């Protein structure tokens, strides 16, 4: 079994998984390792990071020195192919033209989806993050608690490999001893940010990222992950030996040919394929879920993008892992006599309460970091340190004027020069050139530090997506229309970020005439631009107030599960990918149990 065509796919599967990213990859991995026969439906083309990752290419080997374009928004060498803020032939719309009311939707039509290019920052939600309403009266509590998810965080971290440390900080859970890999040493700018951050009360600790700082222990981990399952242990042990440790060069955003970082295509799909239980059909656009007279899902209708022809796949269970909004689209387009408003939508809540991460950045030149002796700061191709949210007590006491926190990511160091930014100092508005420019460029290489805030957005009734009644995509499938609005909590949170970052770079010795706007509206990144959208199929404790139950299973159709970020009842500042994987593993375990019991 392998990548198949619609014609060569089997008649029937145990489970259809729609999507191949963090959620789809994890679902397929867990299900196939336990013997379920799975068909994965992916809208993009097949993609192999081992042969398609431009690891050491320098920008002069790329068109336009690798600069971002509408075809490759994150630069030519970014791993994303057939993706971006717009995908040809696959539009979406926004209901409002008003400033701050738009949602930007990033998609990656390729095997592995958006896991191929992400930042690999892998943070656990903490106990507060599952019960936010109980803490401050806003948003929604999840029907599950940290303790329900913790064992799955453990498993995912052991499987994918995450570097970091246990610091015991508030609402920032430790992993069990031996689970995390050692973090890389901090870069010089990160050390300076830590020293000066401490002087103004801001902690800096090693980041958690899904990069192998050393090879995984292929002898002991498989037995911990798959107790009593000899075949799964053998498959995983073999596969872990094919993942190399990081060699401390090249940016993770390009993907990883040596499989040292997590992508669905480097971690989940190879062992799942090796079980022989996974078929993947690529360039297949899922349109709707089919149901029988009893209201049970029977399978999925998809369009073969190459031929434009429609195909049907059948299975006992359907897992939606298409990304939060694409999953909403499939559910709302699955209309039938039994479900005239779309599948799983008896509550009317499918598409409601979509959330992104709150983002803003500020930085400056740090004279102490000028003219440093050349040394290699490539490191793990991303952050080595970060700042978890540190003002829980002040916030709970009502001292901050906004309800939820943010963490801070850093950009420092002597990274490979890119085709953006000016290299001159341009003091007094004078454009530098010649020998003076060269001197300035050498002196300032690596002296610029920037802080990036990543904060929690509280779900609100004005941020949702629905089917646009007038627009269809190239295949005639109705598309999504977005509605978006930030609340004052997010706006004030961004203003706090900007003040903090300006204080912080000042504490590092930055002398800047610029200062950030005190108005968060001017600094907040547009909705969707952090590419952390979750919600739309929220899990909850009752069918009238949520779309799925605590097992990510739709209340209305018991053999349909949502494995992606759609089920998030809140969007903590912690980047969602690790939690998506943990919940997908948990849902897949439930599916396996229920199939064994004959309930599915």
């Amino acid at each position: 079994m392998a990548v198949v065509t619609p014609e060569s796919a089997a008649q029937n599967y145990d489970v259809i998984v729609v999507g191949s990213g963090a959620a789809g990859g994890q679902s397929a991995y867990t299900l196939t390792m336990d013997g379920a026969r799975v068909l994965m439906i992916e809208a993009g083309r097949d993609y192999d990071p081992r042969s398609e990752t431009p690891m050491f290419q320098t920008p002069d080997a790329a068109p336009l020195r690798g600069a971002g374009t509408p075809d490759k928004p994150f630069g030519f060498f970014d791993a994303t192919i057939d993706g971006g803020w717009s995908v040809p032939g696959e539009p979406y719309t926004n209901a409002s033209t008003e400033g701050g009311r738009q949602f930007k939707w990033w998609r990656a039509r390729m095997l592995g989806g958006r896991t191929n290019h992400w930042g690999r920052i892998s943070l656990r939600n903490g106990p507060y993050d599952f019960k936010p309403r109980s803490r401050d009266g806003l948003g929604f509590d999840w029907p599950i608690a940290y303790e329900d998810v913790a064992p799955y965080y453990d498993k995912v971290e052991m499987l994918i490999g995450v570097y970091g440390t246990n610091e015991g900080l508030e609402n920032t859970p430790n992993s069990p001893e031996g689970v995390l890999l050692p973090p890389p040493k901090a870069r010089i700018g990160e050390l300076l940010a830590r020293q000066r951050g401490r002087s103004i009360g801001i902690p800096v600790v090693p980041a958690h990222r899904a990069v192998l700082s050393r090879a995984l222990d292929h002898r002991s981990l498989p037995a911990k992950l798959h107790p009593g399952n000899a075949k799964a242990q053998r498959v995983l042990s073999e596969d872990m030996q094919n993942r190399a440790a990081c060699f401390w060069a090249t940016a993770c955003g390009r993907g990883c040919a040596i499989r040292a970082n997590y992508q669905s295509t480097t971690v989940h799909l190879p062992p799942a394929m090796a079980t022989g239980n996974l078929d993947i059909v690529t360039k297949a656009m899922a349109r709707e879920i089919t149901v029988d007279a009893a209201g049970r899902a029977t399978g999925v209708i998809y369009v073969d993008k190459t031929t434009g022809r429609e195909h049907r796949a059948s299975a006992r269970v359907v897992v939606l892992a298409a990304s939060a909004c694409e999953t909403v689209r499939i559910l709302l387009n699955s209309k039938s006599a039994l479900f005239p408003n779309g599948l799983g939508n008896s509550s009317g809540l499918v598409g409601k309460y979509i959330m992104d991460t709150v983002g803003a950045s500020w930085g400056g030149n740090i004279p102490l970091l000028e003219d440093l002796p050349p040394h290699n700061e490539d490191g793990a191709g991303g952050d080595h340190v970060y700042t978890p949210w540190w003002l829980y007590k002040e916030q709970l006491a009502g001292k901050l004027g906004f309800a939820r926190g943010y963490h801070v990511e850093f950009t420092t160091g002597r990274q490979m020069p890119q085709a953006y930014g000016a290299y001159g100092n341009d003091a007094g508005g004078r454009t530098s050139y010649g020998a003076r420019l060269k001197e300035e460029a050498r002196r300032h290489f690596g002296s610029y530090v920037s802080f990036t805030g990543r904060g929690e957005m509280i779900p609100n009734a004005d941020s949702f997506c629905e089917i646009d009644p007038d627009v269809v995509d190239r295949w005639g499938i109705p598309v999504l229309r977005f509605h978006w609005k930030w609340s004052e909590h997010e706006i004030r949170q961004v203003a706090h970020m900007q003040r903090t970052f300006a204080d912080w770079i000042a504490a590092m010795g930055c002398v800047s005439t610029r200062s950030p706007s005190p108005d968060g509206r001017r600094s907040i990144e547009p909705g969707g631009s952090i590419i952390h959208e979750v919600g739309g199929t929220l899990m909850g404790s009752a069918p009238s107030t949520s779309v799925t139950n605590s097992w990510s299973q739709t209340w209305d159709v018991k053999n349909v599960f949502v494995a992606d970020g759609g089920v998030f009842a809140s969007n903590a500042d912690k980047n969602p990918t690790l939690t998506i994987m943990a919940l997908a593993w948990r849902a897949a375990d439930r599916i396996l149990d229920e199939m064994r019991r004959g309930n599915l």
Partner: protein
Amino acid sequence: MDRRLAIKWMLAAGAGAMLADPFALGAPGDGQAPVPPPARGYGTDPDLMKPYKPGDYWPLTLSEGERRTAAALCDVIVPAEAQAPSASSVGVPDFIDEWVSAPYPNCVKDRTTILDGLAWIEAESGKRFGKGFADAAAAERVSLCEAVAPEAPEGSALEAPSKFFRRFRNLTTAGYFTTPVGMRDLGYIGNVPMATFDGPPADLVAKLGLTDEVKW
């Protein structure tokens, strides 16, 4: 490449060649329409493993004269020094040509700025020195750059030329410092596989009064 597109590009390249005499261009904004760029770029699924050079995806469109001016200007901005060669010797004029010939919105916007600016600098050189910019003496070329390096007041005669100079400078440095030669010149020494990552040199950490005592 499909034939229709190829013809379109050839036409675009031909029209570019017609602008060969830079003195014919006159001052910026004289109403001459810029050459239309090609309709398509490299698409959303280019082969990332293949090395590219300017001109592989769309034709270069600067005229011979414009390229000479651009190369001379590049080398005032990034001159040859004892430890590193000049911008033109590592292909920066080709990159600038590729950039202003590309179909993407930022590039299309820059095209007008750059073509008008190159024409201005050529005309100004003719006026001041009685010869083209590339043929002017080194000191003459520098004196012209000195005139446009300061930010010019809005509405002044030098506003457009000084904006052009800033943009051209940024393209030149982007083109130069992203080459292996430029990276070395800048002090970037990464992009090599290593068995371990050892962090910053210990004496540097000490010199800045920092500590690396924590458990990572």
